[in-house]
């Protein structure tokens, strides 16, 4: 860890959405959208979060922006926990972190012009004259490769790629040090995707902005990311540098994910159906490792105990009892080593209980 500490640090971030809650009524269950997610992002770095639909990627983005309040955990920007801030204190930190949205059609107010949309964030913090506003709009449009004349257009008069450029310009308006892009290119055509990705990479080089890039598209992630976090059912299962992850995935889910990604090479032999089954429901996730019902390597321990994220020799962290057993770690203290056995003893009943659903 560096002396200055990371720009963004997320610790044990958790979000449960209650089900069945109403007026004076208690929820009877909850969707466990995000569970104990921890990562950090350095200045100027890109962290990609990948996973299939419903694994909690977008919820992480919304939690980082505090569009939803976390159930637990901390989000630290330069050491300040924004998860605990009051609404008016939060405004100051909103400047540091901005977001690019997935859908360039619904994320722009159809009644405002391009110029009004991209200068609005600045006008939330300071008063601009008409001239200043136009200069700012022209500057922002220039940064995202659009001509200043576009500022008078309505979103409905622009193409999808141009709209997403507006979304990026809006995110740049406050000169943030970190931008969260939630599936920022997945709604666009492939040719436009490449333009937008290159734009994001250029902006990162010029302005030194850190990105948290959320995607389900491994091709995009490989192109963009410095480090990649793989999420499955609300938890991070593997976090590694981009090269290491694609060269040698450790977690069986990462392996399956990479194997199942389409590659434009007709001669390549593909594994047939890398993993069987469906993603379990986050309302009632499996005991132990959430991936065990689909995992070809699953052992008894996977059904009982949630695997912790264990650091590997090459710097990555993996949550898997088989591939990255926690007991093999030297740094582990005696007390911690005792812990699993204690939990094992207590969990014997839950094995019996969980045996039935596992067989069926």
């Amino acid at each position, binding site marked *: 860890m560096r002396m200055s500490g990371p720009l963004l640090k997320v610790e044990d971030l958790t979000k449960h959405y209650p089900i069945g809650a109403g*007026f004076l009524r208690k929820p009877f269950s909850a969707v466990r959208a995000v569970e104990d997610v921890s990562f950090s992002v350095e200045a100027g770095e890109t962290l990609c979060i990948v996973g299939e639909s419903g694994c909690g990627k977008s919820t992480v983005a919304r939690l980082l*922006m505090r*569009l939803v309040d976390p159930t637990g955990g901390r989000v630290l920007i330069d050491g300040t926990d924004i998860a605990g801030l009051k609404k008016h204190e939060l*405004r100051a930190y*909103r*400047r540091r972190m*901005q*977001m690019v*949205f*997935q*859908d360039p059609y*619904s*994320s*722009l*107010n*159809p*009644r*405002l012009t391009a110029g009004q949309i991209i200068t*609005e*964030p600045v006008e*939330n*913090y300071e008063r601009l004259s008409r001239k200043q506003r136009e200069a700012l709009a022209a500057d922002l449009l220039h940064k995202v490769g659009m001509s200043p004349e576009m500022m008078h257009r309505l979103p*409905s008069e622009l193409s999808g790629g141009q709209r997403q450029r507006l*979304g990026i310009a*809006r995110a740049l*308006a*406050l000169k943030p040090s970190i931008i969260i892009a939630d599936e920022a290119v997945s709604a666009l055509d492939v040719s436009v995707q490449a333009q937008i990705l290159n734009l994001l990479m250029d902006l990162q080089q010029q302005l030194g902005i850190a990105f948290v890039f959320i995607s389900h598209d491994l091709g995009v992630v490989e192109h963009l990311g410095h480090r990649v976090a793989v999420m499955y059912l609300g938890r991070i299962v593997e976090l590694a540098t981009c090269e290491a992850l694609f060269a040698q995935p450790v977690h069986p889910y990462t392996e399956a994910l990479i194997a199942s990604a389409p590659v434009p090479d007709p001669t390549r032999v593909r594994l047939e159906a890398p993993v069987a089954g469906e993603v379990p429901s986050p309302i009632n996730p499996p005991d132990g490792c959430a991936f065990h019902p689909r995992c070809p390597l699953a052992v008894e321990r996977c059904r009982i105990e949630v695997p912790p994220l264990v650091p590997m020799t090459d710097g990555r962290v993996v949550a898997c009892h088989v591939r990255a057993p926690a007991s093999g770690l030297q740094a582990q203290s005696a007390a911690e080593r005792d812990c699993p056995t204690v939990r094992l003893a207590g969990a014997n009943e839950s094995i019996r209980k969980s045996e039935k659903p596992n067989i069926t």
Partner: protein
Amino acid sequence: MTLPAATLEITPTAPLGFSGLARIARRHPLVLIGGGLLALLIVLALSASLYAGDPGNMDPFKRLQPPSAEMWFGSDHLGRDVFARTIFGARISLMVGLASAACAALVGLLIGILAGYNRMFDNIVMRVMDGLMSIPTILLAIALISLTGPGIGILIVAIAIPETPAVARLVRSVVLSVRERPYVEAALCGGARLHKVLWRHILPSTIPALMVQGAIVCASAIMTEAALSFLGAGVPPEIPSWGNMIASSRLYLAIAPLTIFGPGICLAVTVLAVNLLGDGLRDMFDPRAKRRR
């Protein structure tokens, strides 16, 4: 009296100028017809004293006359000019209609937006609104007027109260759907304060629905006023109103059948004009329709 008219008439067209007005007229004929009729009625009602005679002037020798060159709509049972009374009655009808619509729309908008954004307020106030909705308009008006005595102010309030919940529910439903849109979240991410989000991103989306609902409320308020005056619970009888004119003509229908037509047709035309305007405005404000150029 001109203020509610202005909110209905001028707001959508004001920033456009003459060519914009012409374009709206071409593309949305309903707005032109409804708005034109309503504007004509308002001008006629406001300038009534310039060309119509005294509505209170009685001539016992010319009672229950059919329409003639002197008295276009004939005369009533006290020998008063029905045309003059109809024109002056338009003031009451339009004022009550527009003012109740404006009151219901403003209060409903405020309640709807707050309810859409605050769960607690929503739970409490919307139950009260449900209760208000179940009160029949005419009954409430009769009850209120018997408490305070007849008057136009109390009439407007009495008509606006039961219309407010419908507006509030409508606005609330629009707010609930709009607040989840990504552009509203984007505004929050950009550091916008709540009041700015409401004013700039949510309020404009409620205007089309509000306009249409406002027109419906206005039309039904005009009808309710006429009904109340017809029943004798509306405006004081010495003030001419379409409702009390129709009521008094009804008694002499067999002798002078034509005197009922003046106020009756005016009432129908006014309600039609307001409804046409409301329909036209709904089409005009629909951003999806706007995109097709």
